[in-house]
């Protein structure tokens, strides 16, 4: 289990100014915490691709955004991710919910293709990623920021299940 309050604390430690994305069942509680945080502006977008363009503009303007979406939205974002955050060299951290992870692990049929497509896509696009499996792993967000800063490229933090 991942406690959203611990994720929020890590986001605050990394001095995030804006969280951009689309909430899902995995991130809903986190978004609720974020909406009540006076220091972080939440910007919902209508499709996840917008999040990468918007966050890229925020970063070039001097802010420190984070993208929070589900893996399905990551697939939707393909060209926007490539053409904005990646091509512009934005050290952007994206927290991505791993929909279908449990179905894939249990071997049940049918397996959610949102899960089976996910890591191969991250690897195909050369996106470094860190696992956040429980509250103890929230420090991976910090690791991701270090990696993003070192490479001037986007880095993912992926997590299964629903934050509580």
């Amino acid at each position, binding site marked *: 289990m991942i406690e959203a309050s611990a994720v929020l604390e890590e986001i605050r430690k990394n001095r995030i100014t804006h969280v951009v994305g689309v909430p899902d069942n995995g991130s809903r509680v986190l978004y609720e915490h974020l909406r009540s945080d006076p220091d972080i502006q939440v*910007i919902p*977008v209508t499709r996840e691709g917008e999040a990468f363009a918007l*966050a890229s503009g925020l970063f070039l303007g001097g802010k420190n955004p984070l993208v929070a979406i589900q893996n399905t939205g990551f697939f939707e974002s393909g060209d926007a991710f490539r053409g904005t955050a990646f091509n512009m060299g934005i050290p952007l951290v994206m927290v991505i919910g791993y929909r279908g992870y449990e179905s894939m692990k249990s071997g049940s049929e049918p397996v959610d293709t949102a899960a089976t497509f996910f890591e191969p896509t991250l690897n195909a696009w050369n996106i470094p990623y860190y696992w956040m499996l429980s509250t103890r792993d929230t420090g991976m967000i910090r690791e991701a920021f270090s990696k993003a800063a070192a490479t001037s490229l986007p880095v993912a933090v992926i997590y299964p299940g629903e934050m509580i």
Partner: protein
Amino acid sequence: MLDKYVCLEKLASRRRDEIVITTMSVASPWARLSDGPLDFAMVESSMGQAAPFAMGLALAQPQRRVILLNGDGSTLMCLGSLVTIAQNPPDNFTMVITENRTYEVIGNYPIPGSKRVNFETLAVGAGFAHVQTIENENEFDRNLPLHFESRVAQVFIWKIKPATEPVPTPTPYIRERARRLRLALAG
């Protein structure tokens, strides 16, 4: 109908320290008028994403106006961004939709809905407080100052004649242009 080259010249003549984001068939003509660090051609990027990109800049730089010159085809490709912008409207944001009803850089192939779509209705419906369609040069001259002065996020639709601009090829590459823009904004 407006001549986009005349409109761009007039816009450039009034422009001071605003960020200007361009796309597709406007990118090259604008670069011939102005090509400094605050001019950002949203090319080698992702068609349709200039609007949320410009919104991010406007939110991050509230003291500086951001003028987005977006094609009609580009606007259609990320139509939801009108809603995204209108829900958190930066006061310093001016969006121009250059409406020629074609994908000009591929030889003026018609955009979807080219005979029916109404961009003013779309922008109003998305929630923009100020939306204006401009169809002739007198209207353009009258409204030009507003492009720089309005205190609400706004959309202007320029009804322009199709021209024959090729696919833009700005230099340097987009990563360097982004770095240049960030440095300029950092002061």
